[in-house]
């Protein structure tokens, strides 16, 4: 991934910063208003998880090119406690903070591709891609 644009997440204000950068890049790639809003919402969810549960973390964005299509890739990285039961975290209604529609299943729905790796005590890495349709 190169060149990357990253936003460090330490305080709640950084969530807004990450959304702004992500939306800007989404606009450049050519996403419409609806998809821009979806990308921003996905960023909120990922950034909020870092802000709430990890000490340090960042979200990086990159414009990527598939075979025929372009997309926006975002990677959320943190050194937080890790997720002990990923299957459970991917179930609707698991998140205590969000209620209806939020949490990681929400991010998966808002984006096209979704991948998660997590190790207890070491941290979590989530990669999510949205493609231009």
């Amino acid at each position: 991934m190169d060149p990357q644009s990253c936003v460090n997440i330490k305080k709640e204000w950084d969530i807004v910063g990450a959304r702004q950068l992500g939306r800007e890049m989404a606009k450049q790639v050519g996403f419409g208003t609806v998809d821009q809003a979806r990308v921003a919402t996905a960023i909120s969810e990922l950034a909020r998880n870092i802000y709430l549960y990890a000490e340090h973390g960042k979200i990086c964005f990159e414009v990527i090119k598939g075979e025929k299509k372009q997309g926006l890739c975002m990677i959320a990285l943190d050194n937080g406690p890790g997720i002990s039961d990923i299957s459970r975290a991917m179930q609707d209604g698991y998140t205590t903070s969000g209620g209806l529609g939020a949490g990681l299943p929400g991010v998966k729905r808002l984006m096209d591709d979704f991948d998660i790796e997590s190790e207890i005590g070491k941290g979590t890495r989530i990669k999510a891609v949205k493609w231009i349709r």
Partner: protein
Amino acid sequence: MEKTIKNNTKRYQDLLDKYIHSQDEEALYGIEKVSKDFIKKNILPEEIINLHIQAMESLNKDLTEDYKHSMNFLLEAMIFYGLALQEVTNLRQEKDVLTSEIAIAANMQKTLLGTNKPEIDGVDLGIISVPAHQMNGDYYHFVKGSDDTFGIAIADIIGKGIPAALCMSMIKYAIDSYPEETMRPSTILKNLNRVVERNIDPSMFITMCYAHYHPTENILRFSSAGHEPGYFYHAETDTFEELKMKGLVLGVMPDATYEEINLTMKENDMVILLTDGVTECRDGDRFIETEEVLQVIRKYAHLSAQEMVENVYKHFEKLQGFQLRDDFTLFAIRKGV
């Protein structure tokens, strides 16, 4: 999905145009149908907002910058609504899996626990038992003895659904294994109490009443283990007598004993046994009074016992808006003329 939106963009725009000019109900009826279509095709609310923005632009209304910004803001507010809606599909599938498992179990419960209402000269029997949800937490079981004697057990398992069903199969096999000599209600409850106490976790318990009828003596013996009281209808005086018996619910103390009463039934006398799902029906936020139940029973008392219990059920089903809060079981025995 994209295609549906495109096909409907024109339709949306035309209806919107029509409505803006005439505020005509037909346009609103039209958009209602369109939005039903959209939902079926998983088009999310934020996409409707976007469609609306585009339609307004095409209609060349003089749109201010403020307007455009305000609509983007509204669109943003809808994203979470779209997410929530997507949960439906998932939830429906998960629920379907559970429901079909429970449907199999409920069917099995019927086969496993099946019991037949005996046909006995000189008495008229009626029984109805309807679960509030898929599986019935109420339970009744007929035991036929020799010489046209028979017993009936009516139970309410505290806790519903599947755990209750497991309990019932235990009770059934226990009752069926008792020899006929011990068919006295107080003995049966005493024995069952021991089985339940030994086998079931302390947080769970069962209320049960048991009645045993001797047609030759016209006597109904009756005991209750903490169950909802029964009612003895005296035809002569047209009055109901409450049958409240001493006896702990099953499963609490290993050596509980049970009071037993002998009721001599005369012509047209009835005994009514029921579960709290009947007496604790709710009408809106109000619990009904016992007196109301007895009135409704009286209203249908001219019918056969079976028709009577069925009509009483229908009455309370309707009163509760066709949404039972608890399993509903009602039994009646009437001495013939």
